[in-house]
């Protein structure tokens, strides 16, 4: 008897059976058909719920007037339905994208000319930049420091400097000696 009681449907299963019997497992379904206690419980709950609907219907007032369409306009059927607008929009966007891709890839003469001009100006800018970098490598000091460093007279020829500041002979002979020692 205890075993039979334990086989009865739980509250959850009874509610599930009221909602949709096909959701029950095969064994539960089978039990529901065999066991009058579970069947009564399920039918009781089902009846209460249908009575709720019927009572609500019975205790509701009726509308005092019947409903009618107001205004004299007929049903407005739009020339283009919404899905047509959507597909038109999608087609338009696709066409615009294809046009943009073609514009980018196809060498139209007018755009090619523009691009060549652009490349030339970029080349000139690059050259200028390289020249600036080279001059900085040669002499990184700003112009204001060139007089102090003596670099500002680098353009003056060596002969002119020798004329203004003659070479001291001892130094030369010393240098010669040194060279002789070195190579000797």
């Amino acid at each position, binding site marked *: 008897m205890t075993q039979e009681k334990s086989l009865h449907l739980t509250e959850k299963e009874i509610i599930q059976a009221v909602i949709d019997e096909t959701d029950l497992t095969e064994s539960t379904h089978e039990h529901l058909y065999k066991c009058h206690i579970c069947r009564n419980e399920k039918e009781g709950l089902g009846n209460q719920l249908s009575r709720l609907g019927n009572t609500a219907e019975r205790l509701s007032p009726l509308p005092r007037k019947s*409903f009618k369409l107001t205004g004299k306009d007929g049903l407005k059927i739009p020339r283009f339905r919404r899905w047509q607008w959507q597909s038109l929009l999608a087609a338009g966007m696709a066409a615009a994208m294809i046009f943009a891709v073609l514009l980018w890839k196809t060498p139209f003469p007018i755009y090619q000319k523009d691009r060549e001009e652009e490349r030339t100006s970029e080349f000139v800018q690059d050259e200028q930049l390289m020249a600036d970098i080279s001059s900085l490598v040669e002499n990184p000091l700003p112009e204001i420091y060139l007089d102090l460093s003596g670099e500002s007279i680098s353009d003056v020829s060596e002969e002119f400097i020798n004329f203004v500041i003659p070479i001291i002979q001892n130094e030369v002979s010393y240098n010669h000696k040194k060279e002789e020692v070195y190579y000797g």
Partner: protein
Amino acid sequence: MTENLEKHIPKHQEEGSRVASAVESALAGDRACFEELITIYQEKIFRMVYYRTGSRMDAEDLTQDIFMKAFRGLHTLKDKKRFGSWLFSIAVNRVRDFQKQKRLLVFFDLERDVKDPDTSNMEIHDDPHGINHLMRQEFWGHVRRLMEKLSRWEREVFLLRFLDQLTIREIAQILSKSESAIKTHLYRAIKKFKENPELTRLLSGEIQ
């Protein structure tokens, strides 16, 4: 007008196909056929709105509005056989909007919140038998208390299933949810319904 209707909708047709052919004719611009659709659905929609608003006057205004909305938007209906579900989904959304507006008005104290259905003088005059009026008041009081215990979705699903008596599939279409989600909400709602002894006793006929 009746002749016109009979020409379009033979009486022997079942309601489903009758509705579908009426929808087709209405789409072609036949107002009379749409009015036939109104005749078929007006009580169901009116009751559906009444269950949620508890006011006959609001239910009348909203039902009229729902049919006008449906008429204007009929061309958006994809499947003519699903006119009923489509109409109910318009009604559900319209009632939801109405309740939002009402909550705002009540919040700003611009309107008094009338919760009890059928308590206006008009309803009492409509009902010559006092006992019926008391029963009505008691019943709707219990229903309202049950509804207050349910979440928004549980309430909507429970009302659509047991008061509007729609199928689970129809409810899923109306609320744009899966059938299993509808069953889950329904399970929770029924559990709470079972925990409400006064209403269950009333329905079992213990309270006279």
